[in-house]
């Protein structure tokens, strides 16, 4: 337990190192770091003012309420120095996963198409959902079968996906996850995860880190983190 509390990393040794970005208001950072440890990688927390991420094999932008969601969810975080580091990492073709608030941030900085805005029913929606894996070309979904159903919880008030050009996303196979059976937030075509053209940058509203142990009700989230391997 001491190691967890006082060291910045979870695992030691020559393993893949994944940066877990922290802004004031991020609150899923430790869950994400634990999930990264569960699949045998090393997680290191990265503060928002760190511009140099060249040491990392990939990064996760975890969920939370960065900068209190002021202006819009993810707006303030989108102009911090760490974003330049993330953009540089993307140029090096390293994978980037944005979860919940992280997904909103990726939308704000334009690394993925579209935005996540206030739910159709404008309340905070926290529940387990069934998702359809619509694309397996991202590293994070490569261990799933196309069309497979996965069970992962959502927890957001601003998760309604909107884009100006839905056909482009379909043509370029950029739709990664869609709600199955019901659309809890009114997202366009029930989309809740998209990727960039390369597939290496993926934004998802559901929380895979909350579905990584049997005791939590599902282990479907582990594959997303195995994507970095």
């Amino acid at each position, binding site marked *: 337990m001491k190691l967890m509390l006082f060291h910045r990393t979870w695992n030691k040794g020559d393993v893949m190192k994944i940066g877990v970005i922290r802004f004031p208001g991020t609150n899923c950072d430790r869950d994400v770091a634990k999930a990264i440890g569960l699949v045998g990688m090393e997680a290191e927390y990265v503060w928002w003012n760190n511009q140099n991420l060249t040491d990392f094999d990939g990064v996760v932008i975890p969920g939370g309420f960065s900068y209190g969601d002021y202006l819009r969810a993810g707006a303030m975080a989108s102009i911090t120095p760490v974003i330049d580091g993330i953009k540089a990492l993307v140029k090096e073709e390293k994978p980037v996963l944005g979860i919940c608030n992280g997904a909103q941030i990726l939308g704000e900085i334009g690394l993925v198409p579209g935005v996540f805005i206030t739910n159709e029913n*404008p309340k905070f929606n926290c529940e387990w959902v069934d998702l359809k894996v619509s694309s397996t070309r991202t590293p994070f979904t490569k261990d799933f079968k196309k069309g497979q159903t996965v069970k992962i919880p959502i927890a957001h008030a601003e998760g309604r996906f909107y884009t*100006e050009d839905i056909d482009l996303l379909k043509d370029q196979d950029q739709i990664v996850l869609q709600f199955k059976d019901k659309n809890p937030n*009114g997202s366009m075509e029930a989309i809740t995860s998209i990727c960039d053209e390369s597939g290496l940058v993926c934004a998802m509203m559901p929380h895979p880190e909350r579905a990584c142990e049997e005791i939590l009700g599902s282990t479907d989230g582990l594959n997303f983190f195995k994507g970095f391997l």
Partner: protein
Amino acid sequence: MLFDVEVKISLKSGMLNPEATTIERSLDLLGYEVKNTKTIEIIAFQIEGEDGEAIKEDVVDMCERLLCNPVIHNYEINVISQNLE
């Protein structure tokens, strides 16, 4: 010269605005029948400069880079000089 700047940010027309819909429904509960309800955010600040046009250009930049998300928002900028000579 000191300028007062006001930026009005609204959702593009046709975009679903759940906040406005809820307000409209609540007004209906009070017996007021209203329609086409919108919510508009106003950000106001003061800025030093020589020329109103140049300031407006800067504010457009602010809107595109931070204050608005061009995918979903329209914005309207008012720049008023405090110097009324």
